[in-house]
């Protein structure tokens, strides 16, 4: 393929929360900034911009990843899922989001979108997670409000509810 020139904007085509979208990006534009400024999806938050805090975590082709450690131009043809894609309807929360509300899993909410995207991906693959595994997932995120305990409670409650729904189905 041709070399994308620095300082010029190039068209990208990808899927965001199940919908085909396109936007322009310079090669140096981070996925986090592409989502926020080019696509207007501001639910993804930007914290440290070197991969440590976890606030910008999104799902790339189903796996949680740091949007700040990914170039937008690497995402041609990829399927991205962000916090905007979690709720099943505009007036309904997902099971995981509802558990965060019930268990006070957030205070200021800055870290929440990233944590939700990590936990959503993890709970899809681990139907009956133990607390240690959930702590391991959360170790990739910094939260300065909650002390993590309510987040852990919310995650365990969501896992239980998801398992119950899967059993009922």
């Amino acid at each position: 393929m041709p070399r994308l020139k620095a300082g010029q904007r190039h068209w990208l085509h990808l899927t965001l929360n199940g919908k085909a979208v396109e936007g322009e990006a310079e090669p140096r534009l981070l996925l986090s900034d592409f989502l926020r400024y080019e696509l207007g999806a501001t639910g993804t938050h930007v914290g440290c911009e070197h991969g440590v805090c976890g606030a910008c975590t999104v799902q790339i082709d189903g796996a949680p990843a740091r949007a700040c450690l990914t170039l937008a131009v690497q995402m041609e043809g990829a399927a991205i899922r962000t916090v905007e894609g979690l709720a099943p309807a505009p007036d309904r929360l997902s099971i995981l989001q509802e558990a965060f509300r019930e268990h006070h899993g957030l205070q200021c909410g800055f870290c929440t979108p990233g944590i939700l995207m990590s936990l959503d991906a993890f709970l899809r693959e681990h139907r009956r997670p133990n607390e240690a595994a959930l702590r391991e997932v959360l170790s990739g995120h910094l939260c300065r409000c909650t002390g993590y305990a309510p987040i852990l409670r919310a995650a365990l409650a969501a896992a239980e509810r998801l398992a119950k729904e899967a059993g009922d189905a």
Partner: protein
Amino acid sequence: MKPAPFDYLRAETLEEALEALHQAGTEARVLAGGQSLLPMLNMRLARPALLVDIMPIAALREVADAAGALRIGAGIRQAALQARPGLARQQPLLAAALPWVGHAQTRSRGTLCGSVAHADPSAEIPLVLVAMGGHVHLRSRRGARRVAAEEFFTGMMATTRAEEEMIEAITLPHAAPDSGHAFREVGRRHGDFAITACAAVVDARSARLAVGGVADRPVARALPLPSDPALEDALEQFAWSLEARDDLHATAAYRRHLVRRLGRAVLEEAAACRA
């Protein structure tokens, strides 16, 4: 915290990538998973004029058993290798170390070869490569060569890779049938760079300990077996030979302490899991 401008080339073939690296020389950097390079770009510690993205190259996305060793292509992500069936049997040390590499959210994109190319002195994958006596396979337009891991790492984020060369693969010899392996590290938080990391390989007659995070590169040494009283002095000498330094996270004395204590612990664990 935004990268300086650069051109971006999505290489579809190895030849295309090698040609671009040849043309650009010192101005180019290889981009694979980006989990080490992007922080460097964001902080502008690296300002390449060109990034050559090698992830579309199908030939680099191969993991293969090759003559008693595991060959891991430059496009293989850490999470993908972690999920490989039988990894814990063939490569018990690598399997034990991979969960310590960054976080699940970075292993999903980060590659093994990228971590080796970055050559952080406290990184786990370079440490395992040195502990197992693995090799780095380099390629440029001029040809290919194979470098032993212990010769590849030359200092803090420094390697013998020439400017236009790229890592094509790494190879790790499979665990010998009668050997035991163990890995442990100490850091401030899970996922932080290790203050000290230790990897041990023990069989009936010999023991080998590799240490990361203390010297300017991962260092391996043959040591007496854990049952031998001579181990204590040998660990002491090894700890001092690494020329530990004080930094924000730990003193040199604490690092030497960890080499002695963590070193013995992994050697004993490796010897125990032979049984």
